[in-house]
């Protein structure tokens, strides 16, 4: 079990609405690092999903159970192995990817137990952190990346472009993507202009080419 990390503030979770829109009615959803279950509750209430969360921080698990959710308290590397292949339609990694120790195995395991993986993460190549680093010469602290170098749970610094390159290398197909900033959707130059990336991906089975939904 790893040390608890501070929850990302609700205001910093602009990805929720997009994820709720993306997940179809009645889907089976696994939320890795579900926190106190805010997203999962939205999915249950609005999309009638059969949802399960995995969360390592005890108090957050309690809050999720209070919301009526099904939650597994523990490490998601261990818990993912409990599920058979194809147990879920969607696996969600909302603001968790950049905090996962073994990123490749989390993604591989997620795409084993789920058909689709929804990954959202803060874009380290967004213009604000770029500018912050350039002007102050210090590790970026922004609204989307609110931590100091010594207390950040974000152990991987990735950009939207990095993730795209990664999916190509790992033979993972991008099904949908959304690029977000505080002002809403970003379409032009997302790697510079978007604070967050949200990707829906699946294992390359030959069926799916990138088909961005605009």
């Amino acid at each position, binding site marked *: 079990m790893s040390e608890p990390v501070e929850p990302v503030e609700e205001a910093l979770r602009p990805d929720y609405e997009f994820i709720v829109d993306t997940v179809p009615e009645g889907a089976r959803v696994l939320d890795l690092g579900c926190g106190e279950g805010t997203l999962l509750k939205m999915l249950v209430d609005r999309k009638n999903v059969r949802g399960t969360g995995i969360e390592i921080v005890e108090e957050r698990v309690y809050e999720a*159970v209070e919301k009526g959710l099904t939650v*597994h*308290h523990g490490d998601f590397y261990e818990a993912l192995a*409990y599920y058979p292949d194809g147990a879920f339609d969607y696996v969600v990694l909302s603001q968790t990817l950049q905090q996962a120790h073994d990123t490749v195995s989390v993604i591989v395991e997620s795409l084993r137990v789920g058909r689709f993986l929804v990954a959202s993460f803060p874009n380290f190549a967004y213009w604000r952190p770029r500018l912050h680093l350039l002007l102050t010469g210090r590790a970026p602290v922004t609204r989307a990346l609110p931590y100091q170098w010594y207390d950040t749970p974000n152990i991987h610094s990735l950009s939207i472009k990095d993730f795209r390159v990664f999916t190509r290398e790992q033979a993972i197909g991008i099904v949908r993507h959304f690029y977000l900033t505080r002002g809403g959707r970003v379409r032009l130059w997302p790697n510079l202009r978007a604070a967050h990336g949200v990707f829906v991906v699946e294992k390359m089975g030959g069926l799916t080419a990138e088909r961005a939904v605009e």
Partner: protein
Amino acid sequence: MSDYLISEAGLGASVGEVVPQSAQFDSLLLDSGETLQPVTIAYETYGRLNEERTNAILILHALSGDAHAAGYHGGEDKPGWWETMIGPGKGFDTDRYLVVCSNVIGGCKGSTGPNSINPATGREYGMSFPVVTVGDMVRAQKLLIDHLGIERLLCVSGGSMGGMQALQWAVAYPEVVASCIPIAATPKHSPMQIAFNEVGRLAIMSDPNWNNGDYYHGPAPDSGLAVARMIGHITYLSDESMRAKFGRRLQDKTAFGYDFSMDFEVESYLRHQGEVFTRRFDANTYLYVTKALDYFDLSGGHGPLEETFRDLPADMRFLVIAFSSDWLYPPYQSKDIVRALKGNGLDCSYLEMRSSYGHDAFLLENKDLTRMVWHFLATTARKRGLRFE
């Protein structure tokens, strides 16, 4: 189960005075192939059954427990063993649910057991009492539930052996059970658990007063039973809780005695626990119930646990709870249950509560446990269409 850890202060509202009840049944076919007849089951109920008869919860007790789970017997000031969890507004909320608890068969608190009179001989069964299993205990409870006119159980729950019975209920009567909360339990007894039980049994059987179980009209094997209880008690605590409670403090002394009388507080405490236990518990029941525990294997010894859960209905809900410092029923055993449930796509939440109190943690006042059980039941009730005023 330890007596000292239970805080009786601030327990909140109680169900108040309760009256022990019992029901008689003609016979019960046991896993061993023997038939027990007749069968008496001692039980208590708290709260009220709703008109639709959909709000009943069955509570199962642990090794040394009994049917008296909550409230007070007339004239007594010691509440039932799970007073912390059962009552108005508590985890098992008697304002909402009918809570039933019964003494296991093989027990010594009113249900038929080795200290009951065998009608065939007119004497106590003693060692002629048939060996019972957790499966038998559950089959007997089913007779009781039928007798009470309850067709569906909103939940079955208990800690330790109670958790094992709860799991057994889910597997044996999937059409009856809507949800299951096994706490500090295991899908099967481990070699270490069997080993501790065997030491306890040998302590009893080595006591000359045990007399092959035939002691009901003479001196009882109290020293053997006390030692068995002391061993058991150690396994219910933790290194941390014992250090915190006793340290190396001496009992009624300022220096070592340099002899083999008692020196340390922990020695005095254990002896006291052992001695108190002999006043309320039957040594033969200790043998029978620990044997039932050792035989317990939810899969029946056949193949993976996942197979055992294969036919459970998709709407059955589980809340599996373990305690971090429980080294007798370690969290890995609860996770084995969880893994097998999830392997079948069943609805299962798992909580590993941080606690320093070892196995006994489930009996202590615990706001988080209360809160989790209350909400889990509320969700289950909502999904089953129950309404509360």
